C-alpha cells in the first residue's frame, strides 16, 4: 500500500499528539523517580535512583517534572476551553464528539461486557469508547490529586502554614496510593488495550500517527463512520499513511515506553515485600 492512498481516518491533531507524548515522557519520569525513592532500600531501587543521580537528585527531578506536568495540565485545560463548541453549548458537551461521559457510554459498557460473554452483539461505538473516556478522566483526576498532594509535600514550610503539618502524613499516603494506581492502570490495562489485544496488536498507531486504519475503525466504531458518512465529512477526515521511517520511529518509541513501563511494574512487584511501607 503506497502512502499516497488515503486509507486512514484522522483521530488526533498534532497538538493532541504532543500532549500525549509529553504526558508519556513526564509520567514515565515521575514513575521512575518516584519508585526509585520508594524502593531505595532495595538494590533495584538503588540502581534506579543511581540513574537519576541518587536519592536526593531523583526528588529534584520529580519536583520539577511534576511542576512541568501541572503547567501542561493547566495549558491543556485552557486548550480545552478553546476547543469547546461554545455556539451549541452546553449540548455540544454531550455530543458524540465530546470526551465527556454520556448515558450511551453506560449502555455501551454493559453491552460490551455482554459481547465478551457472547450474549449480545458488539456495541456500535462512536468516536470515543467509554474506556478511552475513562482513561482521559483518570489522568484528569490523577493530575489533580497527585499535583495538589505533590505540591504540598514539595514545599512543606509553606503548606504547613495553610494546614496543620500532620496533613503531610495524609498527603503522602494519598500521593503514594494514587501514583501506584495510575502506574498499575497504565502499565497493565492501558498497555494491554493499546498493544496486546488483537484489534491493535502489536501497537495502536492512532496516538502517534494521529490516524487509524479506516477498515478496522469501520469495524470497531461503526457509529462514528456512519455519522461522518451521513454528514458528508468522511472524505475530509481521511489521510494518508505516515512515511515508513516515521512509522519505524513510532514503533520503536512505543515499544521503549512499554519496556520502561513493564520494567517499573515488574521491578516494583518483585521488590514489594522488601521495603518498609
Amino acid at each position, binding site marked *: 500500500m503506497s502512502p499516497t492512498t488515503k486509507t486512514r481516518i484522522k483521530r488526533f491533531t498534532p497538538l493532541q499528539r504532543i500532549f500525549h507524548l509529553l504526558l508519556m515522557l513526564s509520567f514515565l519520569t515521575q514513575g521512575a523517580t518516584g519508585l526509585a525513592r520508594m524502593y531505595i532500600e532495595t538494590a533495584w531501587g538503588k540502581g534506579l535512583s543511581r540513574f537519576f543521580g541518587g536519592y536526593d537528585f531523583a526528588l529534584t527531578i520529580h519536583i520539577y517534572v511534576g511542576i512541568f506536568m501541572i503547567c501542561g495540565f493547566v495549558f491543556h485545560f485552557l486548550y480545552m476551553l478553546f476547543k469547546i463548541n461554545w455556539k451549541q453549548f452546553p449540548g455540544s458537551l454531550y455530543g458524540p464528539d465530546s470526551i465527556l461521559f454520556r448515558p450511551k457510554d453506560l449502555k455501551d459498557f454493559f453491552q460490551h461486557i455482554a459481547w465478551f460473554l457472547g450474549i449480545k452483539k458488539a456495541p456500535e461505538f462512536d468516536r470515543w469508547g467509554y474506556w478511552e473516556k475513562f482513561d482521559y478522566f483518570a489522568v484528569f483526576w490523577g493530575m489533580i490529586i497527585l499535583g495538589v498532594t505533590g505540591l504540598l509535600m514539595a514545599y512543606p514550610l509553606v503548606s504547613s502554614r495553610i494546614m496543620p503539618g500532620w496533613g503531610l*502524613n495524609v498527603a503522602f499516603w494519598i500521593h503514594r496510593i494514587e501514583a501506584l494506581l495510575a502506574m*498499575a492502570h497504565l502499565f497493565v490495562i492501558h498497555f494491554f488495550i493499546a498493544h496486546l489485544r*488483537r484489534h491493535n496488536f502489536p501497537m495502536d498507531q492512532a496516538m502517534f500517527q494521529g490516524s487509524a486504519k479506516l477498515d478496522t475503525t469501520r*469495524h470497531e466504531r461503526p457509529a462514528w463512520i456512519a455519522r461522518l458518512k451521513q454528514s458528508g465529512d468522511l472524505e475530509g477526515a481521511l489521510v494518508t499513511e505516515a512515511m515508513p521511517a516515521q512509522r519505524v520511529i513510532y514503533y520503536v518509541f512505543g515499544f521503549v515506553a512499554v519496556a520502561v513501563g513493564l520494567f517499573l511494574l515488574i521491578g516494583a512487584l518483585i521488590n514489594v515485600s522488601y521495603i518498609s511501607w
Partner: protein
Amino acid sequence: MKKMTPGRLVLVVCGILLLAGNIFLPQPVSAQEEVTTAIRRYKEYEVSTGYYEEYEAKPRHQRPFVEVPGVRRGIFPYSPTAARVRVRTRLADSHQGLKFYNRRRCEECHVQETKDIHTTRANLTCRQCHGGEPIASNEHYFSPMNPIRRHAYVCAKCHEGASASYASYVVHAPNPSLAGTLQSFPVLFYAFWIMIVIAVGTFALFLPHTVLWGIRELFIKKEKTDREPDDKD
C-alpha cells in the same frame, strides 16, 4: 445605747454587704485563672488534656497523697506527683530505672519507631533528634521534644524555618491500615482506606474487563474483503 450616726450606719451596711458577698458571690477573678496552686483544679486540667501546661514554668510541688478521684494508673492513684515519678512520658529521664539500660539499643524496645521515612530513608539515628542521655520524655516541661519548642529545637536542625504546625507532622507515623490508627490518626486511616477502595475498585472493574475483552477479540471472525488479505476486520 449610743445614737447611730450616719457614718457608723454606712460602715455597718458595708460590713454586712462584704460578708454577704463573700458568702454568696463567686470568688474574685484571680481565683478563676488557670493556676498551679489550687491542687484539685490543676489536676483536672492536667487529666483533661494529657499535657502539663503550655507555659514554660514548672508546676510547683504537689502533695503526693492528693488524688484525682476516680482516675488511676494500675493500682496507683493518679496525681501530678505520681505522674512525675511513674509515668514515663513525664520524666526528665524517660528511661529512668530501666534495668541494663546502658547496654540496650533503642530499637530493641521501640520497634515501630524504626520503620518511618526519617529512619529508613534519610538514615537518621535516634539520637540525631532525641539527643543524648538522659533523654527527656516528650511531654517533660524542659524537653526539646516538647511540642511547644520541638519545631525550633529539633525539626529546624534540618528543616530550617520549621513552624509549630510543621512540627505536628507525625514522624513515627502509624501504619494507616491498622484499626488502631482509627483512634490515633483517624484522618490518615480514612484517607488511606478511601484511596484503597478507589484503587481496588478500579482494578476489580477493569482487570476482568480487559482480560475478557482480550479473549473475546481472539474469536472475531474475519470478514472476507477484497482489499487486503491481512486486514483484521
